[in-house]
């Protein structure tokens, strides 16, 4: 029990509260009501009121505001109640007293009952009511809103915190005072016959430093934290874009969190990639020249923790669990991002890519609340500046190409086609102009459609002192703007918290997510470029043709007609995840508690592709219909057992935590391709053979029957220490030892540790009551974390026995073991400050970090004599260093209107410090990274223009002197000439795939019940591999339809032409122009996007109350309305690449060219 009395000019404020396990902090006025009983039991005889108030305060946590003078007039009271309500007790206390009370929030305000003075005369003109609004420290608050709703009057305080109203007639009123960051205050006043001068004290609403942050194994207040932790509420997350993927919704909201999803337009995609403070691994840095990943990128990403339960790492072998897999955005109460060592080290070997902690909604002990959130909207195709050529356009480009071809290869073409002049040649290779004009068909219109999104979230929450519950169900249906692509998702979540007694409590949760997705299996999305516009897809009677037969370049050709195929073919993606957990908490003593968290997760995924025998691919290659069925399954179990010690001696407070964890996970995947299926019968059993519909592997096991399975076990012990002195100086430390089966017995164990300290400067006397600085905290920490990248058993040389030769079993070496391989470790240093200025009108934080990742596992290419192409070694070191900052300002604040701005920005600098042979040879195409460069940097041959005479591209070839220094450059006309000496340095660094900076800006304007918010996201300094330009812009004009040139591009057609940006069509189609390491195919990825605009209106009025509605809001929301991209960017979506998935993206998904969807939604949110 603790008693804290603060003296204020004129008013004594008394806070009585019980100290619980939660630390009491600076300005320790925040009280969690849920921890107090609402019932009072007491027995007092003729006790002074002050004593009674103390007791009430002790039991309920309520504050009492009064002056000594007030109580001096009051008489002692006798109270004897059992489980009485506060109101009942207070009514007894104030019966027949000269004073009265009013309850405001958790404050009981005492006033003197005044009677009219003897010489009272009513002044018809009324009186002046003046006042000043101050905070608890007595500092005046400027800009606070002061209203007398009874009189419909309102004003705001001036710079000195003063306000005044004139002409207030005698009577009793309530002054309503509000200011952002403070609790609203209702002050009862009585006006008699003279001017009144009042002082109103506002109590700080939840100080940011008091905010409880869930860091995983323990909850901490923001003040206690020594590291960078950012919390964002579910309401904020939900007020942006609409998606089933939480990571999409987080983009632009959190510093240090780079989120990108190039397939956002495809609702069945696996979800956005999340990078916390840069790439701390070399996993996913593209593929090496053996077409193998340096390490698969898909398992790289932050650790996800939901309500204290660590989620499994992968959903299927090689596929990381993403935020999209774990929670329905509607169920989120808050998301906390743990970025540096002091917060993540406790998660040890899994935390080097950061930790994201999700807290879901919980019930409160205040009766039943029902919430209904409905949303419906239109999705509009967002194709950016991508436009495929019309028939006549393609024809004219083909004519240019064939003419150039003739000029270059006349002799060979004469022989090949048996012609003697250009016209005859063109007649053979080009279609008739009549056909082009008559039957041109715009395939884009049929492939990219207007569609819809709808969402229903219904929740019930509530409870009693003993049991609290939250039940939520959700339905989400998004149809993409690409044809035949959509996701229907059903979710539920049940959270139950039960307090048996003051010693024992438990929490149970069950979460289910059921996804039913469809994707286009008729290949429209990926093959629109193959569709020649003058090939009309319908017969004369208007039926889609069963296949497209036409002549191209003089050769007969057939192609699938997706309009026909989509009637029969399908591609479904079903995912089901079920998570359950049970936590038991035992308070052994007041200062020692034990908890055990046990979770069981189950996931199942199934992808089915059916190609009907009636369709092109089903029929053409003799497969006679085919079905591909891929399933994946995982289950994981984890038990975490933690002992927590917490005790305070005087100014010293100690918190110790020790725990142990044991987890297993099993992942399995199977896949089968079968063929020979009767039309419409898509069952594996009915198939005649194994094989692919493309017919090349009938009866072959390889590629048609797949299965993978592995188990891993992780065992850990960990501890954490927290110490604080005077709630002003904090220190923290943690240690964790992990043992993982991913490594051999000798290298199995690794220990990770962290230490940190923080200082709340604003609590020092020299800053107390400072008018500028409200809160100011400094913090620093250092520590390590790790990652268990890659597959199992790197330590052993393994044979794959899954082959046969001549019908006999055969085993082939699969990997060369490395007995000395061990853990990757990231050492991070974080320094930061949090501040709040000018009465919280300006608040924010600035952080600096330095993350050194060591012993990164790399598949190192070996010299040929060793016989193996590569071996996994701990070879790389990578440094990430950066600044991140957030600033929230209240720009305008008046009675009805408020404008606030939230801004955040992150700068990250990445550098490869060490790699085998001084460089990371990840040469899909000769691509490599040298020490000192960003690990996501791209090397390419620099294209510098077009030779005006030949129309050939010009490339820069560097000239080296004998010592290897660059002494100059010369322009040559082919990549082959640039690389003739085989010098890799001819590939020049043209930029990085990761942005140098990114961030978001949210502006919110509120006028009375109307609110408008605008979220902008920006990033810059990165380059993008432009797959569209590479695959479909003019380099294969003879074979496919092409993307039209955009403004600023001009094609070389005439000798001597100097303004050309694009080489001649002949040069593009021949020679080595078409090469992913031609810098021409990279674009500047800097962009700014209006991510979301949302207009909402809170409904008010008596009818709501009558209907039992406590809150109702209607809103309109627009997503991805507009993007400003760098000049010359061609595409529908400038979203950057995730962890250097260079050359890996866009391989024919339905998301092809879709871009982040433009959505116009309308919604309704009602709480009963």
């Amino acid at each position, binding site marked *: 029990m603790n008693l804290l009395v603060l003296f204020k000019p004129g008013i004594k404020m008394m806070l009585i509260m019980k100290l619980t396990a939660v630390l009491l902090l600076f300005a320790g006025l925040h009280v969690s009501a849920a921890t107090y009983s609402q019932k009072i039991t007491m027995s007092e005889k003729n006790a002074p009121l002050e004593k009674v108030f103390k007791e009430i305060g002790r039991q309920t946590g309520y504050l009492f505001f009064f002056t000594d003078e007030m109580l001096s007039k009051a008489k002692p009271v006798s109270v004897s109640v059992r489980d009485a309500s506060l109101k009942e007790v207070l009514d007894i206390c104030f019966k027949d007293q000269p004073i009265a009370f009013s309850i405001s929030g958790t404050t009981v305000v005492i006033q003197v009952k005044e009677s009219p003075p003897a010489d009272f005369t009513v002044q018809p003109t009324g009186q002046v009511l003046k006042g000043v609004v101050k905070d608890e420290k007595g500092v005046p608050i400027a800009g606070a809103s002061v209203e007398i709703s009874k009189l419909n009057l309102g004003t705001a305080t001036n710079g000195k915190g003063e306000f005044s109203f004139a002409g207030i007639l005698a009577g009793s009123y309530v002054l309503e005072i509000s200011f952002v960051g403070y609790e609203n205050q209702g002050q009862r006043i009585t006006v008699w016959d003279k001017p009144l001068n009042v002082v109103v004290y506002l109590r700080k609403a939840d100080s940011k430093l008091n905010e409880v942050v869930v860091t995983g194994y323990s909850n901490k207040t923001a003040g206690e934290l020594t590291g960078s932790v950012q919390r964002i509420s579910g309401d904020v997350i939900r007020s942006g874009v609409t998606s089933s993927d939480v990571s999409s919704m987080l983009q632009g909201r959190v510093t240090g969190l780079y989120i990108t999803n190039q397939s956002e337009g495809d609702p069945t995609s696996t979800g956005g990639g999340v990078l916390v403070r840069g790439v701390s691994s070399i996993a996913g840095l593209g593929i090496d020249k*053996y077409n193998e990943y340096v390490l698969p990128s898909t398992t790289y990403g932050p650790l996800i923790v939901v309500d204290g339960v660590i989620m499994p790492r992968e959903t299927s072998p090689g596929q990381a669990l993403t935020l999209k897999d774990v929670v329905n955005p509607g169920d989120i109460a808050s998301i906390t991002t743990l970025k540096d060592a002091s917060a993540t080290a406790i998660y040890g070997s899994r935390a080097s890519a950061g930790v994201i902690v999700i807290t879901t909604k919980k019930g409160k002990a205040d009766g039943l609340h029902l919430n209904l959130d409905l949303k419906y909207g239109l999705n509009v195709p967002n194709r950016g500046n991508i436009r495929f050529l019309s028939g006549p356009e393609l024809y004219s480009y083909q004519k240019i190409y064939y003419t150039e071809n003739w000029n270059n290869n006349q002799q060979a073409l004469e022989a090949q086609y048996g012609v003697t002049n250009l016209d005859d040649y063109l007649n053979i290779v080009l279609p008739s102009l009549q056909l082009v004009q008559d039957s041109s068909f715009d395939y884009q219109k049929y492939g990219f459609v207007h569609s819809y999104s709808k969402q229903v979230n219904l929740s019930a929450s509530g409870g009693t002192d003993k049991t609290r519950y939250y039940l939520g169900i959700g339905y989400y249906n998004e149809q993409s703007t690409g044809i035949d692509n959509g996701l229907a998702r059903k979710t539920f979540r049940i959270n139950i918290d039960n307090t048996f007694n003051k010693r024992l409590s438990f929490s149970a949760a069950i979460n289910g997510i059921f996804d039913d997705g469809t994707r286009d299996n008729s290949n429209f999305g990926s093959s629109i470029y193959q569709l020649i516009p003058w090939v009309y897809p319908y017969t004369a009677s208007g039926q889609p043709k069963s296949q497209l037969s036409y002549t191209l370049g003089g050769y007969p050709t*057939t192609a699938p007609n997706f309009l026909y195929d989509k009637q029969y073919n399908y591609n479904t993606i079903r995912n089901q995840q079920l998570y359950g957990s049970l936590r038991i908490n035992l308070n*052994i003593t007041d200062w020692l508690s*034990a908890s055990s968290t046990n979770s069981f997760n189950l996931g199942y995924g199934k992808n089915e592709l059916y190609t009907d025998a009636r369709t092109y691919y089903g029929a053409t290659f003799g497969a006679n219909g085919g079905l591909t069925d891929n399933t994946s399954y995982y289950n994981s179990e984890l038990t975490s057992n933690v002992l927590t010690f917490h005790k305070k001696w005087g100014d010293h407070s100690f918190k110790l935590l020790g725990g142990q964890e*044991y987890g297993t996970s099993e992942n399995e995947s199977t896949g089968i391709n079968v063929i020979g299926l009767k039309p419409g019968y898509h069952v594996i059993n009915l198939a005649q053979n194994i094989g692919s519909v493309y017919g090349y592997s009938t009866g072959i096991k390889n590629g048609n029957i797949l299965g993978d399975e592995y*188990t891993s076990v992780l065992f850990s012990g960990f501890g954490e220490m927290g110490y604080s002195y005077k709630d002003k100086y904090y220190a923290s430390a943690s240690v964790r030892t992990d043992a993982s089966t991913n490594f051999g017995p000798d290298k*199995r164990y690794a220990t990770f540790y962290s230490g940190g300290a923080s200082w709340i400067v604003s609590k020092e006397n020299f800053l107390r009551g400072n008018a500028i600085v409200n809160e100011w905290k400094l913090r620093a920490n250092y520590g390590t974390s790790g990652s268990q990248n890659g597959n199992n058993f790197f330590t052993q040389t393994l044979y794959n026995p899954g*082959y046969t030769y001549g019908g006999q079993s055969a*085993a082939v070496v699969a990997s060369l073991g490395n007995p000395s391989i061990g853990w990757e470790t990231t050492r991070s240093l974080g320094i930061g400050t949090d501040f709040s200025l000018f009465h919280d009108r300006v608040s924010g934080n600035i952080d600096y970090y330095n993350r050194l990742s060591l012993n990164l596992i790399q598949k190192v290419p070996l010299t040929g004599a060793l016989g193996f192409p590569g071996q996994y070694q701990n070879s790389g070191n990578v440094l990430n260093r950066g600044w991140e900052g957030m600033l929230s300002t209240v720009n305008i604040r008046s009675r009805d209107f408020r404008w606030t701005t939230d801004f955040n920005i992150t700068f990250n600098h990445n550098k490869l410090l060490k790699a085998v042979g001084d460089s990371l040879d990840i040469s899909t195409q000769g691509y490599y990274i040298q020490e000192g460069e960003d690990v996501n940097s791209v090397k390419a041959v620099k294209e510098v223009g077009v030779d005006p005479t030949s129309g050939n591209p010009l490339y820069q070839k560097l000239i080296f002197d004998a010592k290897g220094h660059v002494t100059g450059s010369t322009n040559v006309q082919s990549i082959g000439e640039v690389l003739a000496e085989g010098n890799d340095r001819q590939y020049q660094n043209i930029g990085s795939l990761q942005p140098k900076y990114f961030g978001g800006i949210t502006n919110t304007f509120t006028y009375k019940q109307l609110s408008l918010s605008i979220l902008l996201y920006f990033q810059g300094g990165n380059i993008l591999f432009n797959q569209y330009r590479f695959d479909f812009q003019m380099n294969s004009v003879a074979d496919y339809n092409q993307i039209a040139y955009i403004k600023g591009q001009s094609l070389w057609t005439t000798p001597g032409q100097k303004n050309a940006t694009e080489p001649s069509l002949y040069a593009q189609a021949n020679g080595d122009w078409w090469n992913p390491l031609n810098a021409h195919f990279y674009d500047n990825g800097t962009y700014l996007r209006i991510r979301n605009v949302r207009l909402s209106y809170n409904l008010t009025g008596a009818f709501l109350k009558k209907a039992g509605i406590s809150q109702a809001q209607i809103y309109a929301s627009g997503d991805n309305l507009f993007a400003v991209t760098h000049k010359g960017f061609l595409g529908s979506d400038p979203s950057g690449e995730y962890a250097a998935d260079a050359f890996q993206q866009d391989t024919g998904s339905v998301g092809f060219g879709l871009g982040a969807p433009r959505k116009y939604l309308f919604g309704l949110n009602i709480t009963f």
Partner: protein
Amino acid sequence: MKRSSILYTALMTGVLFTSCKKELDAVQPLTYISQQGELSTLSGILETTNGNYVNLANTDGGVFGVPYAAVFHNISEFRGNTVTADLGLTNAQQRDAYSYVNSGLSTTGYGEYLWKDSYFLIVGVNTTLEAIETFKSGAQFLQLTAPQQSQLLHAEGENYFLRAFALFNLVRVFGMPYYNAPGTNLGVMLKLTSDVTDIPGRSTVQQTYTQIVSDLKQGAAYMSGTGSQSNIYANKEAAWALLSRVYLYMGGTFTTPDANSNQMAVTYADSVIQEAAYSLLQGQEYVDMFAADESGTLGRADVKGNVEVIFALDNSQGGDQINSMYHYLNYYGSLTGGFYPAASFLSSLQAGDVRSQFLQVNSLGKTETTKYDVSPNYVYGYAPTIFLRLAEVFLNRAEAEVKSGDNADALSDLNVIHTRAGLSALTGLSGQPLFDSVLAERKIELAFEGQNGFDYFRNGLPMTRPSGDTGGTPFTIQATDPKVVMQIPFDEISTNPKLVQNNQ
């Protein structure tokens, strides 16, 4: 309550800690088996030996994702003059060997593919050979039955054969022809162990050939026991047949022959030809040997019963994809293929030559070879990849004989092949004209079988493509041109300082 709770927690923690090590050790790889476990049994050794064949044909494809056989075929056949590359359908990498660019980069040529694939195979062989040696010296060997022991020794012989096969292919690509200063010109690395610290430099061409001959002879000796393995595996006849070719390559030019080597070529050819198990296919059987088999009804994919074939890769489970280089198909709406029979080759076929039936005009109007064409579609070829067949042994012998001055036997051997093709016997030839005829016959008989690219240079002759094949300009490479050999891959030069580059 208090005490029991603490006790319980402590107990639980203790139990979990102690049980952990056992639990962790119990987790083992599920999808793969360890090297130690695999190589300690007879069946494991046989499996890894089979795995070494898989490496040649693997549809998963070498270390770069392209099967060894396809890489080697690209380099061996297309450096000759039987094909013309379609510029529109081939890229720089596919044309690298054809155009004699000889790139040292894996992105623009297949040289590095061949180098890495070969040493992957060789180290696989060495690992198995070492395991066999260990096994033979252990107690386990003595417990084997006699047939099992013979099986093990045969496997050892097969591994020697495969190493010789890989080294011979390597030295033909990276080392100058044997007639040209073999004692000083550099061959390839003789990597004869699996030791990761054994990183040799290049031996001379002569040293390389010496190792090849030694491996083949040793292999033949180990395989002398039982001939139970079929022609999709190496056997002693395969070793002899390859020896006849290796000695032929060592036999010098027509004007400066090496009598001893030619004699050895004849001797080993005799050994094969005298084996009753092999005979030349005649008549319709010969026509069907390479007939278009789109439907697979001829059963060509099952090469085991073919008495002419001495050693071929079994592709019946989906093969090495050599076919994809030859076949003009409309695949996914676009044309594929890339190398078509050269005009000069087509015109060299006489009327009535049965071997013109190994060509067909496909539905797109393109002429193509049917030697690899049994698959209904394009990616995997099911037809066997034939490395050694009896017809070649006859031609080896004919060439060695004519170089040795034995014109009569040479002409007789030449006519065995010539008349089988439905042509009338050649008469009155001797000396240079006879030698030229043998080479001409070899070009036609073994066209598209990976021989043509070497047959000119090993005889000191230029390889010439007439203007009709090249779209205008004749193309000639002299046997002494440095471009006759490919560059050592740049990555190899940089990771192995002992290697010396083939300067172009």
